[in-house]
């Protein structure tokens, strides 16, 4: 089954070409040009990973990351930045980003990270299901 990816960047030309390259690699890609668009898409659900630009007009990447993690904590977020400093990378990881990549990113390396992101998400979703089942069993005294 194809990975479902949400690609977020304010540069339309970047979104178009990345979307085409990722689709050619078997991924199902949805694009968003702003943080608000991205959060609306996240609300609809169904994504395995989000590739998110750090610097965008309005709400920046780190604020968007926080908002995504609040809505869907199991979603794996890969941040893209034109200027990846160690400081920003650490802050991103502390806020729950799965990875932090400097632009221009190598498509094959990014694809690998997306495969990994999907696997991480599946593990988290399974854990969530287990916890829910345990709670139901405990609640009913089985």
């Amino acid at each position, binding site marked *: 089954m194809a990975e479902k990816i949400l690609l977020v960047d304010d540069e339309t030309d970047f979104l178009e070409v990345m979307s085409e390259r990722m689709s050619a690699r078997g991924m199902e890609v949805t694009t968003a040009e702003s943080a608000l668009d991205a959060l609306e898409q996240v609300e609809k659900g169904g994504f395995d990973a989000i590739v998110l630009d750090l*610097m965008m*007009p309005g709400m920046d990447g780190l604020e968007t990351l926080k908002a995504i993690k609040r809505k869907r904590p199991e979603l794996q977020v890969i941040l893209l930045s*034109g*200027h990846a400093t160690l400081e920003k990378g650490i802050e991103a990881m502390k806020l729950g980003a799965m990875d932090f990549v400097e*632009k*221009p990113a190598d498509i094959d390396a990014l694809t690998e990270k997306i495969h990994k992101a999907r696997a991480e998400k599946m593990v988290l979703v399974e854990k969530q299901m287990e916890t829910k089942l345990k709670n139901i069993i405990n609640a009913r005294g089985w």
Partner: protein
Amino acid sequence: MTTTTDLTGWTGLQFFGRTTASVSHELKNALAIIKENAGLLNDYLLMAEKGIPLKPERLKIVADRIDQQTRRADTLIKHLNRFGHSIDEPLTTVDLNDVVSLLVALTQREVSMKQATLQLSMGESPMTVKTAPFWLLTFLGHCMTFSLKMLGPQKVLHLQVEKVADGTRIIFTPLSGLHGAHQGEFPGEAENALLQSLDAACHIDPDAAALLVNLSNR
């Protein structure tokens, strides 16, 4: 103890750093798009080797994108180069319209990050003024940052360059919230040091919702 010269120097250095970082960020974006389109061409070639025919219309789209982004990068570098050369002469005669146009080009990213729009009204060319171009750009850069912070809800900043009786003037308008708490905030210590070096004057007119910068005839 920090002298006016130290403060001016430091303020100029900060503006230089901030501006080159902003422009280089834009350059990276343009290069990223060029790189990905080059990669897409490779993808098409790999598909062709596997028997999927090349589509000329797709190749045209990719070629156009590369061309457009190369022009974008070239324009950015041209502006950065002009900015770098603005420090060549400590005092020289310039066309103020050119200086303000360069300011607009250099602060494009700052404006778009605030989700604002800029409208520029230039005065009759040439609008010559004897000034220190780099320090003028630095001061106007500070005016731009303050104006974007104080922008009204419409998020449209209007820059006007005009001749006045004793020199030239640049107006940043319409700004909101200039009464009360923000009085005295601008110009601050750094801006006043720059104004002293430029032999220029700046004042905020809350009733006109404007920030005005006056450059006298030297």
